[in-house]
């Protein structure tokens, strides 16, 4: 049974290019240009999936993304769950299977590439059917920048599934000439296989382009599989067509039941006959084309059931001519069959809205048409208002968008002439006179259609059998009535109660029908009830596509310091500090982290060590108001700092809580340079700018980030003076001449540097600052000058141990947003003289003066080998009491001290400073470990080492 339901000629598939694929383990063949759905139907395979709740067999219900039931899983080449067979373009080697409503994710990383492109245009046209092509062509001829996106493999839209004629030629010839002309305009971007899935404010739209799947093994493995186009348009033309709507009746979900126009599309676009013996059930004229075309192609049309009492002579003649039995005033009341529809029950509609006795006819295909819903999804996402049109039983755009318009079938204008005219005039409206001049009139013979009937559900549906409203969610008319019976009135509530419209098809066939059924049940108008909100994405979009290239090494920027490559070659381990990659420690061959850190600490305490501290934020502050600004920003006085000197400072928020700390050096009367913590570089600059611009515009000050201009290298340890002396022979490095918290300009390796006597370790230390260009030259010079003294590079871990041994808090580690300078034991850094500064008023709040506030203290484990866990809770008792346990605070920093040969920690503890010497407990694995509360300084309490 190979392609036995394929017509001998016709269709848009390439019969020269057969493709092999597997479905549910069976090999099949199709042609290039097929979808998985059309290829399966060509092989007579209708029963392809099963339903999520009831396990009922399900088939292809529609030829496009509105299909609620043909849900499949791609197994090979790469697993991808929950796709619609009707939207998967066939390629050689595809292995897929039908799903029972749920699929499975790959257990390995996706090897494909995904990316994004930003694009701007005057005119974005969504949909390359007659309306869209007409709009795009008019825009292109007017010289506009145009983007035309369409979800199918080729342009044409509804024309691909029909036999229309434009200007006396087959419509597809017109399509070909239009696309050829569009290709010649350099500023027209025409994308097929690209679905616009979201419309947002200000003409912003997203489209997903499928680029390589259809090429199968011939695709360039480097090429992008899917691309998200981020399009910003001056004007949006929504030419998305319409979706045919089903009518609900008993057992309306069997494989072989299909929307009428979809069967026509399978015939004309793919050369596929969806069955051999068909019944048409319709409420409108449009579906007759499907029945007639299928009949002409050799399908036996057993009967047409038209719910309307009367049908035009043209259609009656068409039936007679083809020997089709036409039953007006009839409906389909049910079906039967095993894995596929085998028979259809046709019954008369009686006057009192009931159905009469059914006549059963044998058929393997049931075509259904309940009318058309304009595809208003994007229009509605773009905040366009909808109105209910009684005549067609559908919601249509009620207005133009501020910068856009729905056209053609998407606007409820179903004729071909309307579509062509609509598209051109939308482009003209957007672009003005030049485009108006470019509008072309076309000769089209649209048939005059008789009014449609609006029928949501065949009377009596669901009373005896199951009548499905949402095939994907297995939700029935009874579910809707139960929701209404439970008191729900809003369509949004009924949607959530029944899950109708929440499948991957997002209710494209069920949404309006649901509103209709609710309206009937409540006896209100559909217009009054409305329809559920349309939200992006219009069709499913894989997270991989949205993530694009923001994965792996490009997930987030990795910021590097000037010595990064040097550290890399030295075998450093790195840690992430915000976006920065910082050297964490420098293990020697076979050395553990603890070993390396202990060695690095020893070098800093006993000899000399150096690190790259370039990540510190640095802000240049200049202007007559510079000193005043810093006085207002820091808690301590900065304006009194003398040129040539440095001062530590703390910044608080308006709430009095510490937000950052750092040092300030004064370069000249009106010129300061301050440092911030690594993580707060940007936010401190922003905060200062905000105060400056919004509260203190009278201060003339300029703030400039120089974080990356300056590389910063602390040289630390008792022998650091000798290293600096060797580097800068001209500089008097004696403590008297170059004292603590002063700075000097100097030259190292022929490069200007600024050296600051500053210490974050308690040791004698110098901080060498140099322009980033020369950073490596100076770094190497330091290494070279330090070699006789065994200078040791150290990383952030050692930096933390050294500072913690001295009780120097790290803002953001030992503090959170609830710590005042006083809580940190740093009342000395809060000026009593200054009239005001940010945070000052908050220090007098009662809450900030409570004696039981959490205060920073040291904790010494009574067993000096126990390393407390950071974040560990501090409690009062040796036995763990019944919960809730009163927590006194928590451990903020915890290390081994190589210098003291013990472990130690910093912690915030309620009323901690009054507890010095007390024994408290930190539970570890459920057992409270005794610790002694100490002051924060573990090492060199008298500060004797600072000056060497």
């Amino acid at each position, binding site marked *: 049974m190979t392609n036995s339901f394929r017509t001998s000629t016709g269709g848009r598939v390439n019969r020269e290019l057969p493709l092999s694929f597997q479905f549910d383990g069976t090999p099949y063949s199709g042609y290039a240009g097929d979808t998985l759905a059309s290829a399966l139907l060509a092989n007579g395979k209708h029963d392809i999936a099963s339903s999520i709740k009831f396990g009922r067999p399900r088939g292809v219900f529609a030829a496009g993304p509105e299909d609620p039931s043909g849900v499949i899983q791609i197994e090979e080449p790469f697993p991808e769950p929950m796709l619609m067979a009707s939207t998967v373009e066939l390629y050689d080697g595809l292995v897929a299977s039908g799903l029972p409503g749920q699929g499975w994710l790959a257990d390995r990383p996706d090897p494909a590439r995904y990316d994004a492109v930003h694009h701007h245009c005057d005119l974005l046209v969504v949909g390359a059917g007659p309306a869209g092509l007409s709009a795009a062509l008019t825009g292109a001829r007017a010289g506009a920048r145009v983007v035309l996106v369409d979800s199918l493999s080729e342009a044409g839209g509804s024309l691909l599934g029909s036999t229309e004629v434009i200007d006396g030629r087959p419509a597809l010839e017109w399509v070909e000439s239009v696309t050829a002309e569009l290709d010649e305009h350099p500023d027209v971007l025409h994308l097929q296989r690209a679905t616009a899935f979201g419309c947002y404010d200000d003409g912003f739209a997203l489209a997903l382009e499928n680029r390589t799947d259809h090429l199968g093994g011939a695709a360039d493995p480097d090429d992008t599989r899917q691309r998200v186009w981020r399009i910003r348009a001056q004007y949006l033309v929504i030419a998305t067509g319409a979706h045919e709507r089903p009518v609900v009746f008993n057992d309306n979900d069997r494989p072989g039941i299909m929307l009428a126009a979809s069967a026509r599309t399978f015939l004309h676009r793919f050369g596929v006959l969806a069955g051999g013996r068909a019944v048409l059930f319709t409420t409108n004229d449009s579906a007759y084309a499907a029945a007639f075309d299928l009949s002409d192609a050799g399908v036996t049309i057993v009967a047409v059931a038209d719910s309307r009492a009367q049908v035009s002579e043209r259609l009656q003649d068409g039936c007679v001519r083809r020997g089709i039995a036409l039953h007006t005033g009839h409906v389909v009341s049910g079906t039967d069959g095993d894995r596929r529809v085998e028979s259809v029950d046709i019954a008369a509609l009686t006057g009192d809205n009931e159905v009469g006795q059914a006549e059963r006819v044998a058929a393997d295909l049931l075509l259904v048409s309940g009318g058309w819903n304009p595809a208003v999804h994007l229009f509605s996402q773009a905040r366009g208002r909808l109105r209910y049109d009684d005549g067609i039983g559908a919601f249509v755009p009620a207005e133009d968008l501020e910068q856009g318009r729905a056209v053609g079938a998407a606007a409820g204008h179903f004729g071909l002439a309307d579509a062509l005219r609509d598209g051109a005039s939308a482009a003209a409206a957007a672009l003005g006179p030049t485009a108006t001049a470019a509008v072309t009139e076309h000769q089209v013979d649209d048939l005059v259609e008789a009014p449609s009937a609006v029928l949501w559900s065949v009377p009596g549906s669901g009373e005896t059998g199951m009548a499905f409203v949402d095939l994907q969610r297995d939700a029935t008319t009874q579910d809707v009535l139960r929701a209404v019976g439970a008191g729900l009135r809003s369509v949004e509530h009924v949607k959530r109660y029944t899950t109708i419209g929440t499948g991957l098809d997002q209710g494209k066939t069920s949404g309006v029908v649901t509103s209709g059924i609710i309206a009937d049940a409540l006896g209100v108008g559909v217009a009054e009830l409305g329809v559920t909100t349309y939200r992006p994405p219009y069709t499913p979009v894989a997270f991989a596509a949205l993530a694009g290239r923001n994965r792996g090494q*490009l997930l987030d*920027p990795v910021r590097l310091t000037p010595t990064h*490559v040097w550290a890399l070659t030295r075998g450093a381990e790195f840690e992430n500090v915000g976006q920065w990659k910082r050297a964490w420690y420098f293990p020697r061959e076979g050395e553990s982290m603890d070993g390396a850190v202990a060695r690095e600490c020893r070098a800093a305490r006993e000899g000399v060590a150096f690190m790259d501290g370039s990540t510190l934020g640095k802000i240049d502050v200049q202007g007559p108001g510079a000193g005043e600004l810093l006085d207002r920003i820091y808690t301590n006085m900065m304006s009194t700092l003398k040129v040539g000197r440095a001062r530590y400072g703390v910044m608080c928020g308006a709430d009095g809580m510490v937000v950052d700390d750092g040092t300030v050096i004064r370069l000249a009367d009106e010129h300061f340079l301050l440092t911030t913590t690594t993580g707060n570089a940007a936010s401190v600059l922003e905060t200062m700018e905000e105060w400056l611009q919004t509260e203190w515009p009278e201060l003339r000050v300029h703030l400039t980030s120089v*974080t990356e201009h300056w590389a910063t290298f602390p040289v630390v340890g008792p022998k650091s003076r000798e290293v600096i002396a060797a580097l800068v022979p001209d500089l008097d490095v004696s403590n008297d001449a170059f004292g603590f918290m002063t700075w000097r300009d100097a030259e190292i390796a022929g490069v200007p540097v600024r050296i600051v006597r500053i210490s974050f370790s308690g040791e004698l230390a110098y901080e060498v600052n140099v322009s980033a*260009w020369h950073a490596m030259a100076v770094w190497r010079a330091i290494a070279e000058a330090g070699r006789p003294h065994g200078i040791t590079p150290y990383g952030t871990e050692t930096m933390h141990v050294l500072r913690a041994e001295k009780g120097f808090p790290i803002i953001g580690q030992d503090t959170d947003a609830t710590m005042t300078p006083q809580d940190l034991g740093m009342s000395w850094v809060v000026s009593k003289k200054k009239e005001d500064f940010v945070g000052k008023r908050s220090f007098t709040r009662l809450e900030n003066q409570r004696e039981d506030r959490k205060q920073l203290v040291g904790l010494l484990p009574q067993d000096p080998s126990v390393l407390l866990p950071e974040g560990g809770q501090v409690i009062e008792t040796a036995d763990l009491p019944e919960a809730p346990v009163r927590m006194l605070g928590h451990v903020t920093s915890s290390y081994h001290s190589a210098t003291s040969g013990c472990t130690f920690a910093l912690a915030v503890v309620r009323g901690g400073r009054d507890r010095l010497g007390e024994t408290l407990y930190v539970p570890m694995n459920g057992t409270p470990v005794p610790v002694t509360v100490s002051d924060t300084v573990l090492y060199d309490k008298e500060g004797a080492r600072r000056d060497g």
Partner: protein
Amino acid sequence: MTADDVAVDQRVSPLELWRAEFKALPAGVRLRELAFLTQLSLRLVPESPAVAAVSEALGVALPLEPCSSAVAGEVTVLWLGPDEWLVMTPTGDGETERNLRAAVQGHGAVIDVSGQRTTVSVSGPRARDLLAHGCSIDLHPRVNHAGSCVQTHLAKAGVAIWTRDDSGTDFWVVVRTSFADYLARWLVDACVPHRQDPQWQ
């Protein structure tokens, strides 16, 4: 060799390790780091009496229009904000800095920020397409002309993009030094799917 020569010889630019990767890109794009441009942050309120002197020192009127620039010989002046310009010059003799400082005197600030950023020249017929992978600004020559300077994001890095011609084929991307490696990686990676694209050759 003088001390200055030694210093110049020892300079390291943020993207020197990317040179080979840049060279291997498809011919449609050319990436080149313009290393060691002297960069000065000029801060001045536009109403300042010093504007005239500054313009004279620069050799060109200080550009006051948002997102604009000015060029005088080898000196490029990029507008970065209402009171902020980036002055770039390949010469490193300090003369521009001295002249500017003298002109600004007391009315603003001149800060050497040469190490703060580096510059990547992105040029070639596909330069605009490459940038479009990560930049939401419309760089089409119809709306974006030579001389425009915009601060925006390219991928996740903050950058200034200076347009140097009217055909959308010549841009300077000025990026913070610490983000340069990320940006280079991103740019090179963005070209991967275009390796076989005939339009990129």
